[in-house]
């Protein structure tokens, strides 16, 4: 036996030596160049195929021979330039598609040339390969199966979890607090699933999260749980009673922070349909769990507060208008780990539910399962503020979308508007220019995706309409807080429905318009605002009940004032923009009509009714009409000529020129060419419109491809000097003015995969002339221009 083994080993060694001696030892071949083959599925079954090669490698016309089951659709288009040639063609394939097929390439004569192959299919997959030199047949592989992609994603999620030390701390806290193994296993699964979803979203560039933010949040959670354990063991139990929730949040963030970590999560390998199904399943699971947890906590809270039966408790938890007159009970203590002790669960219930509902103050009614009118639990039994805030922050961002609306619909008169008010924090006062940067796009994105993932508002409404709707809805919500529950449900319900959708739509629009940094700014500001609000709630919770109503109303008043101020600012900017152009005056017909409605609907004293002792209910239509008139001021206007509009004096020239440039370039944001031309003719005289249109469009769209979007973001006047009417500007007339100016046009260019900004700097002489009652650009002579691409450095 030993001899035999030894002989085998010697035989292997001998063979290896022989192979090593006889194998060619040539140096690796140098690449003589590359051709590029690109196959893109544009509609199901139809592919755009493009082959490009350098001039030195060509041996004839470039061509791609369709494989079996595919046929050429239309004639191929070949283009040649000094350094090479390319051919583009369309292929239509049968149901089996092009995957698994071989494409034969013709027209490449250089045998050393290698072909670089890229394939992109409609389901989001990418495939790339470098063919060996001389190989002129590209075999496109079959896609990986769903099971393989899913397993890779889940495996990566678990793997990533092991690399976060703070997660280990969290798990240790949970184990030490007596959380049983099953919830811990569920938490691990939630982490992995959410990691899958977060990674996919980030891979699609829908979400941008820095790893620092994940570390910070994970550490914060671990610290909160650890500190809670040191102070009060039950609080720790309460904080970790449902660790899967926290794990899902952290998993999504961790997944988003490293989108390319698992290959199956990037666009390579995982199809859109597969990943979307996984995302949807995750969202449904998280949502169902949130609702179940909220209702369960509510039911337990209600039991602890004296609900007579489980049915009562469920009814109370579901938002039923049960007046609880029973004194709060301590409940029977239960074993740690079996179910949270009643006091702890009640506190936990407040953490998740009351924490976001406490602003819905009405000291006269004790109809909420979350403790309105219920004395606070002893201070020593509460979870720490940090834990409460953490849980409330998570709950506040997800519960409104999932739990708020059903209870709202079940009991509109007692609608929990505080959730919606928390959603208001996402937008109302923390716009994209607020400047707060916390570096993360955390659970806000969940809210966004869960409430407005359909993209409905941006699809048919402009950004201004969405912003107006959001602000108006939030104003009603704030009014509900100010008035302490006296807003009629007829107005409150639409506002409550509109607020999350409009907010989500606005946020989505902003996300679509901006790259990662502004998203972080917005989301960070929203999170900060939410936390500040919750801190205020917590403060209100600690003070005497009589002060809670005042605190809630104070917040509502503040919100209303800020909203009105924000809208007023919009109006002032709009008015200034309209006024500076001169020539025309906007008449706000819609707002005037609404004011007329308010006057007509204004409640009047009915002396006869008073004499008879009748008290007719006061309607709120007049208030709604007045608010509508305020919020909708720029809409439904009629432009009339302004006979008092004087020619712009030199002191206002910069405003005038800036406004004309603004109007000229922003016209290019219109997609309808006819409308664009009309809008352009409002700022530019007739003879110049065509040239400026062609030239500006070409420069703005330079380097863009079909499907790319170019949006002018900013037109900044950098320098302006009055100039004598130049001789080069033929046909100058009296009543004209000329200026030497330099200006910068910043445009956002949204390609398929990314967004970047582009700036064009211009210098030139502008001649202005009064036409049709307003100043317009009559002539432009460009003396300098420069195109600047924004740096791609993200830090």
């Amino acid at each position, binding site marked *: 036996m030993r001899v035999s083994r030894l002989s085998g080993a010697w035989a292997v060694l001998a063979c290896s030596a022989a192979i090593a001696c006889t194998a060619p030892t040539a140096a690796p071949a140098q690449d003589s160049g590359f051709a590029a083959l690109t196959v893109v599925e544009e509609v199901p079954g139809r592919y755009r195929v493009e082959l490009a090669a350098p001039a030195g490698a060509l041996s004839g016309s470039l061509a791609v021979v369709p494989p079996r089951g595919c046929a050429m659709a239309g004639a191929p288009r070949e283009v040649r330039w000094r350094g090479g040639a390319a051919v583009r063609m369309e292929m239509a394939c049968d149901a089996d598609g092009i995957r698994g097929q071989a494409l034969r390439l013709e027209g490449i004569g250089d045998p050393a040339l290698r072909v670089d192959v890229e394939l992109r299919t409609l389901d989001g997959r990418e495939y790339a390969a470098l063919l060996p030199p001389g190989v002129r047949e590209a075999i496109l592989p079959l896609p990986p199966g769903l099971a393989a992609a899913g397993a890779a994603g889940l495996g990566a999620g678990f793997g990533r979890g092991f690399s976060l030390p703070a997660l280990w701390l969290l798990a240790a806290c949970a184990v030490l607090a007596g959380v049983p193994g099953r919830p811990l296993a569920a938490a691990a699964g939630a982490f992995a699933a959410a990691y899958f979803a977060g990674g996919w979203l980030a891979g699609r560039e829908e979400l941008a999260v820095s790893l620092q933010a994940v570390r910070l949040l994970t550490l914060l959670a671990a610290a909160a749980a650890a500190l809670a354990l040191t102070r009060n063991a039950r609080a720790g139990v309460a904080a970790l009673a449902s660790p899967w929730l926290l794990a899902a949040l952290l998993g999504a963030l961790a997944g988003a922070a490293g989108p390319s970590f698992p290959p199956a999560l990037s666009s390579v390998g995982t199809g859109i349909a597969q990943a979307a199904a996984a995302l949807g399943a995750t969202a449904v699971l998280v949502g169902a769990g949130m609702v179940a947890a909220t209702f369960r906590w509510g039911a337990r809270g209600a039991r602890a507060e004296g609900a007579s039966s489980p049915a009562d408790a469920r009814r109370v938890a579901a938002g039923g208008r049960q007046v609880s007159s029973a004194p709060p009970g301590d409940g029977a203590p239960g074993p740690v780990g079996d179910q949270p002790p009643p006091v702890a669960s009640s506190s936990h219930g407040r953490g998740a539910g009351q924490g976001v509902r406490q602003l819905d103050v009405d000291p006269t009614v004790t109809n909420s399962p979350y403790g309105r009118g219920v004395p606070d639990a002893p201070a020593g039994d509460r979870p720490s503020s940090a834990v409460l805030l953490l849980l409330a922050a998570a709950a506040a961002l997800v519960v409104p979308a999932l739990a708020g609306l059903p209870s709202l619909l079940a009991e509109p008169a007692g609608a929990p508007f505080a959730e919606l008010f928390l959603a208001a924090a996402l937008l109302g006062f923390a716009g994209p220019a607020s400047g707060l940067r916390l570096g993360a796009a955390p659970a806000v994105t969940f809210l966004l995706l869960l409430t407005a993932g359909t993209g409905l508002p941006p699809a048919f409404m402009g950004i201004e309409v969405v912003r107006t709707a959001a602000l108006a809805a939030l104003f009603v919500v704030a009014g509900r807080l100010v008035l302490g529950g006296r807003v009629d449900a007829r107005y409150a319900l639409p506002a409550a429905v509109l607020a999350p959708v409009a907010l989500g739509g606005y946020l989505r629009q902003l996300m679509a318009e901006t790259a990662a940094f502004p998203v972080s700014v917005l989301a960070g500001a929203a999170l900060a605002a939410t936390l500040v609000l919750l801190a205020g709630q917590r403060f209100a919770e600690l003070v005497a009940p009589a002060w809670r109503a005042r605190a809630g109303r104070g917040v509502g008043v503040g919100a209303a004032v800020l909203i009105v101020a924000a809208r007023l600012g919009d109006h002032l900017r709009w008015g200034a923009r309209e006024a500076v152009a001169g020539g025309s005056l906007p008449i706000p017909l819609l707002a005037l009509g609404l004011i007329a409605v308010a006057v007509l609907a204004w409640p009047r004293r009915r002396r006869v009714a008073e004499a008879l002792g009748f008290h007719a209910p006061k309607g709120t239509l007049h208030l709604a009409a007045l608010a509508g008139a305020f919020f909708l001021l720029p809409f439904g206007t009629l432009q009339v000529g302004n006979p008092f509009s004087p020619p712009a004096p030199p002191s206002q020239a910069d405003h005038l020129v800036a406004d004309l440039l603004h109007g000229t370039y922003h016209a290019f944001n219109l997609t309808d060419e006819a409308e664009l031309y009309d809008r352009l003719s409002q700022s530019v005289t007739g003879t110049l419109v065509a040239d400026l249109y062609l030239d500006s469009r070409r420069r703005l769209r330079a380097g863009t491809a079909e499907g790319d979007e170019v949006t002018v973001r900013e037109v900044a006047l950098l320098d302006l000097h009055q100039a004598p009417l130049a001789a080069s500007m033929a046909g100058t007339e009296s009543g004209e003015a000329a200026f030497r100016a330099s200006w910068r046009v910043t445009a956002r260019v949204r390609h398929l995969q*990314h967004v970047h900004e582009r700036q064009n700097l211009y210098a030139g002489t502008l001649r202005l002339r009064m036409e049709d009652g307003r100043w317009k650009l009559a002539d432009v002579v460009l003396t300098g221009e420069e195109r600047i691409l924004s740096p791609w450095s993200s830090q």
Partner: protein
Amino acid sequence: METDDATPRGGVSVARLRRSATTAVVAGFLLGMVLLAFSGPAGGDHSRRIEVRGADVRRIQAEEGARVGREPTAGELRAAVEGYVRREAWVLEGRRSGRLGDEATLRAAIGSRLELLGHAEASAAPPTDAEVRAFLALRPERYAGMAPSEAYDRAAAELMEEAVRAAVERMEHEVLGRYRIVYDRAARAALAGE
């Protein structure tokens, strides 16, 4: 009311267990803080990160200086560093997309692809006659003194060149936008000429 002193399990009281656990958790938390504090800058996935360090900038500066025979200007240095970033990105992109090959091969393959496709795209849609004429009309001073046909040809060539450059830049941005490019403090200082 508290259950800390009750429910002995396995001969050890829950309270005692928790006291020990608390100590362990706090110690572990502090240890975790220390570990995180010394774990270096936040990075994320390194397969999507391009770091430019001070040493890289100094090396590029020396190479560029040797190439041009003098100290490179700030603009030249910046362009050379951006070229370095591009070359690094092409390698990462080649690996990310599943191409096999050494760094030089990946760099050349991706670079060639972008150049070829940029040229092909721009050549497929040359500037129209109206665009050339509008270009000329808005820049009369630039072509003053030229014959009309010469001015037209020059303008058309400039427009074509600009279109090719823009198309290649756009494709480069498609790739570069997938990566996080980080300049460390020393690199920023070196680029700023400090």
